[in-house]
């Protein structure tokens, strides 16, 4: 009896803690909506407006006037989709080779992949920019897509996944059928790796969508910037109209949250599993 009440009270305390945490976590989203749907005057008045107001549409229209919202959205979508596709392609090929095949230099090469984790990309920010200038890519989408088209994290993670998920017998059977490496990757590897690909895909997509420092530096044509940079510019130019700026922020976040809610279960489970591999 006593143990049961203790357990129940512990559960209640647990839920209370969790709910409080959720409230704090979710509050900024609520507040974002409140700000975007009121006027700046209402928000910064004392006492401030605490519930959503009727001005959302008006603020959103101001955002369309202030920045080329759909244009930046298009650039962001193209960049994020392209990088995601290339990362899945290149990383899964490399991971498949590292996980299931022996070839001379394999260990050394894999160690290089691991070592690149340790090098912070910001270290080489200036020379990377200069490299792109020499290539003539500054300001173009290539600058956002190519440098990140394959990454160490994805290769490492996919290799761990592939080692556990792909049975050697399947590959052997495929070989007997006369399939070469690439056909084996296509017919044996990819179908089994699908959940892992889904995780890595969502992860990469979010990462590129939210990336800020690199596009801020490298997208020099003000008519061609990503959504993050465009929203930040909105703040630079219209600092005094916070409601409008926050409406822009809201518009830049909605697609992401939508994608996340659709794929969240899968993503979170894989993320935790991935962390446990280190």
């Amino acid at each position, binding site marked *: 009896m006593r143990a049961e009440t203790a357990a129940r009270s512990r559960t209640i305390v647990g839920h209370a803690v969790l709910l409080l945490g959720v409230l704090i976590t979710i509050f900024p989203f609520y507040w974002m909506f409140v700000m975007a749907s009121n006027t700046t005057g209402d928000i910064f008045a004392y006492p401030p407006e605490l519930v959503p107001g009727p001005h959302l549409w008006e603020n959103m229209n101001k955002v369309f006037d202030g920045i080329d919202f759909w244009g930046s959205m298009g650039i962001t979508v*193209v*960049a994020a*989709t*392209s990088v*995601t*596709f*290339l990362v*899945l*392609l290149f990383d899964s090929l490399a991971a498949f080779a590292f996980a299931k095949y022996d070839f001379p230099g394999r260990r050394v090469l894999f160690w290089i992949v691991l070592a690149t984790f340790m090098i912070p990309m910001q270290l080489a920010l200036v020379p990377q*920019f*200069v490299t*792109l*200038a*020499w*290539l*003539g*890519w*500054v*300001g*173009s*989408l*290539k600058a*956002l*897509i190519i440098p990140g088209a394959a990454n160490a994290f994805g290769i490492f993670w996919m290799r761990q996944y592939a080692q556990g998920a792909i049975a050697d017998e399947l590959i052997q059977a495929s070989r007997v059928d006369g399939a070469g490496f690439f056909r084996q990757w*296509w017919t044996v590897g*990819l*179908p089994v790796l699908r959940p892992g690909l889904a995780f890595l895909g969502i992860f990469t997509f979010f990462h590129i969508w939210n990336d800020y420092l690199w596009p801020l*530096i*490298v997208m*020099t*044509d*003000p*008519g061609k910037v990503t959504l993050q940079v465009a929203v930040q*510019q909105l703040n*630079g*130019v219209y600092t005094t109209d916070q409601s409008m700026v926050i409406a822009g922020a809201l518009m830049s976040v909605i697609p992401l949250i939508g994608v996340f809610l*659709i794929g969240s279960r899968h993503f979170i489970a894989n993320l935790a599993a991935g962390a446990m591999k280190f």
Partner: protein
Amino acid sequence: MAVSRRRLLALGAGAAAGGFGPTGCGSQRTLGDPDEITLWTWDRSVSDELVARAETKGIPGAEGFRLSRTNIGGHFNTKVRTALAGKSLVPDIIGINSDVATYFPNQDVFVDLNDFGAAELKSRYLDWKWNECVTPEGRMIAFPMDTGPTGLFYRTDLLKEAGITTDPKELAARAPDWDGFIALGKELRKSQERAVICPNIHHVWSIRLGQLAGKFMTQDGRYIGDRDELREAFELAYRIGRDGLSAGAPEGSTDLYGVVTSGRQPVGIGAVWWGLAFPESAAPKTEGKWRVTDPPGGAGNVGGSFLAITKYSKNPEAAYKFITWLQSPENQVKAFTEMSLFPSSPRSFTRPEMREPRPFYGGQRTIEVFGPSARQVRTVYKSPYDRVMDPVFAAELANVESGKNVDTAWRDAQDTIERELTREGAI
């Protein structure tokens, strides 16, 4: 979500292909379509109406070319320099603020306007302004836009209260120099206890600097930023702060507007554009009460800007046609009536539109103050390193204003500048 591998492959490949866009795999050095002359400016730097005309009807004198302008918000110089360092998608024409000398070390990235016969137009513009466009090596890398001749702005109603004359000539005679100006400020205190004569002491410094014949360096690269004249200007700024005649509003803060709106600052020395940015927009209710007269300490210039054509331009000829058209004397008049951008061509000064009585200034013809002021400005050599020195003085003056010893601040400023110039390889 059962998407087949093949469909996903097709989808991704399509997106990736889209990423390489219309430019193909080569790189595009200039920004814009082949028939577009691209221009980067900041807000309120050129006449919007004239730009719109060139965007819709094409550039006068350059058949088949139209203009495409982008207003860059935020840090303009950073964006321009990053684009120049990136060496691709560089606009044909860029606006340059009063710090044109910053670009002298990189003069090669701009076309020499003398190659297009700019010399023929020299007589149309103020000499001192024209000289600022020319590098020590004699290349003309920029073209004059507006100028910022200074005047003394004052509110007649508040001066009356203090028993001070409101006649422009008499007032100018009362405060011919800075000491007279300080005395005027003390006079104002009799009727208005908290009256100030400047928003902050750095403002005094920059106005005084605009009146002197030299800045921080000589043309042959000697540092002269420690000479007595500047030391005195530094002291002057300090004295005005010490006597409580500065509002102490930080640069770039909204308090700058507040002191004008509230009437706490009944007098102010500023360039033409100061009148527009402060009294006219921050205190519209005071219309008709303001007047302008000659500034204490002599004529000077603060601000003003330029246009330059980059070497990446797809057609420098067409770009040159555009800038000379946009800055012709008659179009400079237009820019003045539309945006209060003060002309750099004396030929504009005599135009009837320029001589219109200005209602905000009680029907005064302000050109009668600013015209002569603009003609009297001296040629001052500005060095490429001013951009590292200006902030040092600004920072130390802010320190002085918040109580730092003026001698220590001056010494610290000199030490910091020596360190910075050494770093830049200037000394």
